[in-house]
C-alpha cells in the first residue's frame, strides 16, 4: 500500500456529514496518521484465511408461528420526531 491519504471531501459526502474547513484539515491529517498505523496489518500473511465477521457462527433467524404483538401508538413515535403533524413526520420538501 502506498502512503495512505484520505480524500476527505469525497468520504464526508459518502458519510453524509457536513464538515467545516477546520474540521477537514484536522481530521485529514489525523486520519492519515491512523491509516499509516493500519499498515501494520500488511505484516501478516492472510492467504487462505477465512474472514471473520462475528464471534460466533450466526445465521438468519426466521421466526416460527410468530404472532403480531402490541406496537406503539403513532403519537408515541411521532412525538420523538423533530417536527410532526397529524401523526406524521414532517420533512423538508424532497421533490422539486
Amino acid at each position, binding site marked *: 500500500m502506498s502512503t495512505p491519504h484520505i480524500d476527505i471531501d469525497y468520504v464526508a459526502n459518502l458519510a453524509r456529514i457536513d464538515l467545516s474547513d477546520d474540521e477537514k484539515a484536522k481530521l485529514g491529517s489525523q486520519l492519515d496518521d491512523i491509516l499509516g498505523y493500519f499498515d501494520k496489518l500488511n505484516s501478516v500473511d492472510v492467504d487462505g484465511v477465512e474472514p471473520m465477521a462475528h*464471534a460466533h457462527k450466526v445465521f438468519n433467524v426466521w421466526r416460527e408461528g410468530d404472532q403480531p404483538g402490541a406496537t406503539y401508538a403513532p403519537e408515541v413515535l411521532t412525538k420523538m420526531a423533530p417536527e410532526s403533524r397529524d401523526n406524521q413526520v414532517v420533512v423538508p*420538501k424532497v421533490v422539486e
Partner: protein
Amino acid sequence: MSDLHFKTITELAAMLEAGDTTSVAITQAVIDRTAAVDDRVKAFLASDADDALAQAEASDARRAAGKSLGPLDGIPIGIKDTLAVKDQPLRCASKMLENYVSPYDATCITKLREAGAVIWGRLNMDEFAMGSSTENSAYQTTANPWNLETIPGGSSGGSAAALAAGEAIATLGTDTGGSIRQPAALCGVVGMKPTYGLISRYGLVAFASSLDQVGPFARTVEDAALLMEAMLSKDDLDSTSIAPQGETNYAAALKETKGPWKLGVPQEFFGQGIDPEVKANIENAIDWYKSQGCEIVDISLPHSELAVPVYYIVATAEASSNLARFDGVRYGHRSEEAKDALTLFTKSRGEGFGDEVKRRIILGTYVLSSGYYDAYYLRAQKVRRLILSDFEKAFEQVDAILTPTSPTPAFKRGERADDPLAMYLSDIYTISVNLAGLPAISVPSGFTESGLPIGLQVIGKAFGEADMFAVAHSFEQGHEYYKATPKL
C-alpha cells in the same frame, strides 16, 4: 448504619434480609452521596430521585409481604446513558439525542427490574461509547474519584466513577473494546465483559454490533456474578443472543473450592508501552497465584499487536453503518438550516455529532468504500480470525489468561485529547477479547505510589464465566483491595 453507599450488594442483601435496613434507606444514602460529591465527580448526566425512591418503596413493600425477589431486590443500580430505560432520557452523551426519551426498557433493564433492582440515573460516557477517557461526552467530563485531575477511563467512565465514589451500589456499562474493563481498572472497581451473545443487546444503542456487550460494574466479583445471573436470557429481540451454556449459577459456584488452575501469561502483553508500576503490580499478582499452587504457563498470542488496527477498522466500519440511522428525520437533532433531503442529512449530522464520532464515521466509511474495502476491511476480518485462533490455541493449555487491564494507570485530563492514536492505544490489552467474543473481567490489583488504582484482567474461555469469576474471586479475597475507598 453509616456508609450504606459503600457496601456491597451481598452485604446489603443480608442486611435487608435481617431487617437491619430498607431499600428506601439504601437508595436515600446513594441519593445523598450523589448530591454531596457529584459536583466534583460529574458521573451523572441525569437522575430522578423521586422515581428511584418510588421503586425502593415498592421493594420494601414486597419484602414486607414476604415476596422478596432475591439479592438484588431494592439495590440501586446506576445505568450508562446508552441503555434504554422507559420514560428516561437516552442521549448517549450526544447532542444528537439531546431531547430523546426512551419509549421502552432494554432487555437487561427488564431483567434487573424482574430481580427487583432500583434503576438509578443516567451515567456519563464518551459520546456513542467512542473513547477511552469519557472526555468525548458532549455534556461534561467525569473525574476519577481517586484523583480528580485524572480521567476515569472510558467509554463507561461515568459508571466506573459513580460506583467508586459511592453514588451507586453497582452500575451497568457496555464494552465494545474495553469500555467496561479499562474504566473499572482505572477507578479501582470490578468490571466484567461477558461472552458475546450472553446478554441481550436489545435496547443498547448500537456502536459496533459484532463487538458490543452489556456488562456489570460492581465492588466485588460476587456482586458482578449476581448481576450477570440476573441479566442472562436468550432474547428473541436480539438475533445474536445465545442461550446460556455450562455453569450459570455463578455466585453459588464461587463458594465451592476450585483450582488450582493453569493460568496463561502472554508475554506480548508485558512489552513496549507498559507503565513500569503496572508491570510490577501484575507480575506480583501472577506470583501470588503461583504461591497458591496455580501453574503459570507462558503462552503466546502472536497477533495481539494487530488487535488495535483490526479493531479500529471493524468497529468504525460497523459504526459508520449503525450511525447512519441518525439522519434528522424521525428522531434526534435536526438542523434548522436543512433546506432539502441532502442538507437535512449532512447539516443535522454535522451539527449533532462530536469530533470523535465524526472521525470514526469518516474512517469507517473510508475502509468500506470502493477500492479500499479489500485492503482494510476484508484484511482486518481475516486478521480477526488469526486473533481468535491465537486464543483457541492458548486455551488448549490453560484455564484462564492473566494480563494487565490497561497499560497505564489513569492519565491526566486533556493529556491525550488531541492525539486519537495515543488514545486508541489505551485499549491495547482489552480489545482482542472483544474481537474473539470472549469473557473477561478486571479486578482491582492494588495502587501506584501516587495512589491510582491498577487492574488485573482475567480472560476466560467462551461461556467460561464461572471459571473466570472463580479465578478473579480468589485473587480478590486474598487481597481485599475493594475495601479501600477514595477520599472525596
